[in-house]
């Protein structure tokens, strides 16, 4: 369990953050730029003093202002990957990695070979840091942090300073990390696409406060999200299971809730977990079983909530068998179809976006101490 409850005042800015999440897992701190995400991460790392509060990681109290406990950053065993990598310019890549490894305390759960393989660092070892590209710098920074054998890894917008192509290059490495090391991570981002691909939990932040938290699926339905990412980007994120390939279309058949979607997904084996997003604006709601339609992806379920989205439209939440999805319809449609909780309905899916694989993969390497 990782629990944080801290306050910090900086001029007129007030940080008031609290969240509590199971470990391991990837917590995404998500919010607009300047909402206090980096301040919060610095407080967790101990680089900034909190005015008050507690930070507890599993059974270690790192900060408790009431009981005057403050573990120095160098003793917290928290790895920190900064937005600007912060590699030591006077040291080679190998020496940068060694810097963290040599000072590591506690249970060693990764060695240099594992890290080099995970992050593909082999060919970079002898380079000087100024000879690296932005993406390579971040990979080295992540490796350096991991080798200090941290019990928590903080990543403060590690991709923000990279262009789209470089970002796409580094993201798979982060997914690797998540799937193969059972280390809790806090991932700071203002890019919801990254959050959808990496996170298991999301903490929403707005002007210094944590306003909501939960699993990625639940949080994708959170209405506060709309004001941050915009109405058009809102939509349910659902984790599905690959059933097989549709012989005629060549598309992947993915079970979602009780229903089934046909999705374009590259070489996924049967049983693979896939994370897909159904944008609210891409769903059409029908109150009778639709026939004679070009749309192939149809999910049946029950309306669970009708929420006003803006002056013209409503958001309709539907349960499709233990899984919630959300559609945007005009208020006129809500009236004419008499959409209300409890009503049986069908959702016609115009488009499905693949958001990476989800990760029920068992951890290969664990950072829990062997005797724990």
């Amino acid at each position, binding site marked *: 369990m990782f629990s944080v409850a801290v306050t910090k005042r900086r001029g007129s800015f007030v940080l008031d953050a609290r969240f509590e999440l199971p470990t391991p897992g990837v917590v995404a701190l998500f919010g607009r730029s300047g909402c206090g995400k980096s301040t919060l991460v610095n407080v967790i790392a101990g*680089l900034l003093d909190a005015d008050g509060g507690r930070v507890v990681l599993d059974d270690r109290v790192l900060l408790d202002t009431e009981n005057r406990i403050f573990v120095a*950053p*160098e003793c917290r065993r928290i*790895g*920190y990957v*900064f937005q600007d990598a912060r590699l*030591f310019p*006077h040291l080679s890549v190998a020496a940068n990695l060694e810097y963290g490894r040599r*000072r590591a305390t506690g249970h060693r759960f990764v060695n240099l070979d594992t890290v080099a393989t995970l992050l593909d660092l082999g060919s970079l070892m002898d380079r000087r840091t100024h000879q690296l590209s932005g993406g390579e710098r971040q990979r080295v920074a992540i490796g350096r942090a991991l080798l200090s054998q941290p019990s928590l890894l903080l990543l403060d917008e590690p991709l923000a300073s990279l262009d789209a192509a470089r970002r796409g290059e580094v993201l798979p490495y982060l997914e690797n990390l998540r799937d193969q090391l059972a280390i809790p991570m806090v991932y700071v981002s203002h890019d919801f696409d990254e959050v959808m691909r990496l996170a298991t939990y999301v903490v929403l932040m707005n002007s210094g406060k944590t306003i909501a938290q939960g699993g990625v699926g639940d949080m994708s339905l959170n209405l506060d999200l709309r004001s941050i990412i915009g109405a058009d980007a809102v939509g349910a994120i659902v984790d599905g299971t690959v059933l097989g390939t549709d012989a005629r279309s060549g598309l992947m058949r993915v079970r979602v809730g009780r229903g089934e979607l046909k999705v374009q997904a590259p070489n996924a084996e049967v049983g693979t977990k896939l994370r897909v997003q159904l944008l609210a604006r891409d769903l059409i709601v029908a109150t009778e079983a639709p026939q004679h339609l070009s749309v192939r992806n149809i999910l049946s379920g029950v309306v669970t909530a009708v929420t006003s989205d803006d002056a013209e439209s409503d958001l309709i939440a539907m349960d499709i068998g233990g899984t919630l999805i959300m559609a945007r319809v005009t208020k006129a449609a809500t009236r004419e179809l008499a959409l209300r909780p409890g009503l049986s309905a069908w959702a016609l899916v115009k488009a499905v976006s693949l958001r990476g694989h989800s990760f029920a993969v068992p951890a290969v390497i664990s950072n829990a101490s062997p005797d724990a």
Partner: protein
Amino acid sequence: MMWLNPSETEALSLSLSVAARSVVLSLPLAVALAWALTRRRFFGHTLLDAFVHLPLVLPPVMVGYLLLLMFGTRGPVGGWLERVFGIDLIFTRNGAALATAVMSFPLMVRAMRISLENVDRGLEEAARTLGAGALDRFATITLPLMLPGVLAGAITAFSAALGEFGAVITFVSNIPGETRTLPLALYTALQTPDGDVAAARLALISFVLGLGGLLLSEWFARRVRRLLGH
């Protein structure tokens, strides 16, 4: 050195010896002060800063006089040094080194501070999250990154020490073989009838020495910059 006469060789080697002692003496203290003045805010910060810079604005003769009062045999510090350690500063090359160290100290501290201000504190924070304590961070991150400034400061101070005149002659007098460095020898030659040629030769030696020092320092700075990838 075949083209120098014995007294010139003596003055040159004495100058180098005094300057070297002066740099070795002041270097650790200058690093510590540069760090404290750049990275710490404490009571008396401004006063200490001004105090370090005083030798730049005070007449060197006055600095020599103050040293005489403090470190003379009957001075509070000088008497103690002699009693406890048997160190005699008056009329010795160690005394000359102390006088040049005090005079060149502000130059040294200044070069180091500029360099230290350019060291990214974010790197120290990164080292901290990797488990490095305060001394460890200083030795492995801060010091190597401010090394260009430390070298520049040392070389500047060394060159300035070679040329220091007023404080040296006031504090330790002008004794051949013990405190008569190049500028003092030059001054002596100028005071001697028919000393023109000797003075010109000493002036030329000082000139070559100074130019060589500057070129060496530039070469060093370039090498270090390349090493750091700038």
